[in-house]
């Protein structure tokens, strides 16, 4: 298990290096002068030239890449050009905001998706099954941003049930400790604020979680069906175990393996989809951070932002892989 984990981590190294090359060259290739952006449309050319010099933007590619890797290795993600702050420290609130959102979205997707999938597979070809699968089909076809807009329109603007945007109520701002607001309010014992934080989470969570939910539901159903047809399930039935044991002990664990893969992959989709959801719901997360970085040509922020997201993504997939080997004893020995 440990050897397997180490092996998997070592295998990540070339990917990580590849990623840094990609992130770095993306930025290097982007047209536009960051100095101009920093100074804005009403800046003088002299000021721009001066700033370029300071930022070392005139060095050749490999020198800049070398510097970049050099500082990455020491844990230095660079300094945001927009804010002049260390990205490593600055990024946390954004990251936490995104993580809170994606976490909730994933939990939502999992709870709804897995259960819908199980029941659909169990009651194959029932009305429930058909309804669920049609909903799931529509779900996977849903453009996140449109869903988000529609939700906002209907539930926030027309019905006024839930807040339109943001993470908390500006009148009663949540005091950030970990920047996971739900957690923070719980730590502080301010349950009223917990409710506020949760209310703000509902719409973006559903918007972001719908596609993974649909995909998970479909995946759970099909892998459940496949497992339910397998020989060992027949064995379990033949020895007289009850339906619940068949489904929840034997079938689900086996069906979980492909579902886990989907979850790992969907986390990437979530992190990517966050950029859209966060834009619509004014969620100050990493997606917005990168997006703002792009429009300000904030090179270090784009580089590091994308790198952070991609790293999280591959580590989640690593986690999924390790989880496999926890579930599936065959993997350890491979």
């Amino acid at each position, binding site marked *: 298990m440990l050897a397997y984990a180490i092996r998997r981590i070592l295998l990540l190294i070339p990917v990580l290096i590849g990623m840094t090359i990609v992130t770095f060259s993306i930025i290097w290739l982007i047209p536009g002068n960051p100095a101009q952006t920093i100074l804005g449309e009403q800046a003088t050319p002299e000021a721009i030239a001066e700033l370029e010099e300071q930022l070392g933007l005139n060095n050749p590619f490999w020198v800049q890449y070398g510097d970049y890797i050099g500082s990455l290795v020491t844990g230095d993600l660079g300094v945001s050009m927009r804010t002049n702050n260390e990205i490593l420290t600055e990024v946390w609130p954004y990251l936490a905001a995104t993580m809170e959102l994606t976490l909730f979205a994933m939990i939502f997707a999992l709870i709804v998706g897995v259960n819908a999938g199980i029941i659909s597979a169990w009651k194959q*070809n029932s009305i429930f099954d058909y309804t669920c699968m049609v909903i799931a089909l529509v779900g996977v076809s849903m453009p996140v941003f449109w869903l988000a807009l529609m939700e906002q329109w209907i539930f926030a603007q027309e019905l006024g049930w839930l807040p339109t945007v943001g993470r908390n109520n500006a009148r009663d701002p949540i005091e950030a400790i970990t920047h996971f607001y739900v957690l923070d309010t719980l730590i502080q014992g301010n349950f009223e604020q917990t409710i506020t934080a949760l209310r703000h989470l509902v719409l973006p969570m559903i918007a972001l979680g719908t596609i993974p939910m649909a995909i998970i539901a479909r995946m759970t159903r099909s892998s459940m069906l496949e497992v339910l047809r397998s020989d060992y399930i*027949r*064995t*379990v039935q033949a020895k007289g175990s009850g339906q619940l044991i068949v489904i929840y002990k034997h079938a689900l664990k*086996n069906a979980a393996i492909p579902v886990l893969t989907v979850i790992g992959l969907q986390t990437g989709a979530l992190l990517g989809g966050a950029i859209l959801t966060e834009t619509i719901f004014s969620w100050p997360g990493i997606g917005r951070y990168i997006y703002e970085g792009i429009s300000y040509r904030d090179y270090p922020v784009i580089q590091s932002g994308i790198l952070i997201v991609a790293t999280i993504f591959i580590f989640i997939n690593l986690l999924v892989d390790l989880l496999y080997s926890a579930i599936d004893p065959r993997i350890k020995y491979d």
Partner: protein
Amino acid sequence: MEQAVLQLKNLQTTFQSGRREIPAVDGVSLHINKGEVVGIVGESGCGKSVTSLSIMRLIPSPPGKINSGEIVFKGEDLTKASPKRMKQVRGKEISMIFQEPMTSLNPLFTIGNQLVEAIRNHNKVSKKEAEKKAIDLVKLVGIPRAEELIHNYPHQLSGGMRQRIMIAMAMSCDPEVLIADEPTTALDVTIQAQILDLMKSLNQSKGTAILLITHDLGVVADICNRVIVMYAGQIVEEGTVRMILKDPKHPYTQGLIRSLPKLTEREQELYSIPGTVPQPGSIEVGCRFAERCEYAFDACFTENPPLFELEESRACRCLLYREEEESVS
């Protein structure tokens, strides 16, 4: 006649295919006596597995269903049993092992866990006791190091060992009937010999009746008392091992036996039955073997031959024996 523990009466099991219902098993009647070993032989797709799964009421539904007939187990018709009752029957009174030892155990649980589950399904015992029982069972099927082995996962075992575990699991509650669906087909001959040996000894020591499904007549000769030959969803011939192997009546059985290359005799050319097994449901009238039969005559294509009782525990579904039947009765 001895007392039958299990009796199938005119069992028909169909599968929905598009709009058609295709009978995979079409009017099978058979019985198994206490402590007896009955073999079912037949070519691939003739309905052997469907018959056995029907007994366990494990036909995947949809698309399959038991259409008609009775499955009488000790006087009780299992086709009418509630799911709860079936849960009791399965594993405790009738148990089953399957062809593929490689895929028949859940790969994600230890052997011990799966054995314990089987034991605790029918016996109110603590986990500890169940585990002890499991170790005993593993020992019973002739695997050394049982204490260690129950902590292993199926993939750590060889095919033969897995099949032994399957047998152990099936024997965990001393069932009255053990259905074994091609238990050795996937195994090598030397391993097959081990498994057959084991089954024989269990049959002798515990008196478990065994319904052995196979397509290997050699296996039948080795272990069975009585043989049932199936062809295209129907029983075509039934009799004791000796009768069937030494004096087959049905042209199909005859052909089958003649087409086997024999280890013990010398032969120039093998006999072969022309043609192939018909798709289930493709023949509506007439003898299902008629197309391949060298003795077929006109009536074979227009009449459905019944199963003629030829002598005690001997029957044959062939119009050639009509007069004989008539004369006998």
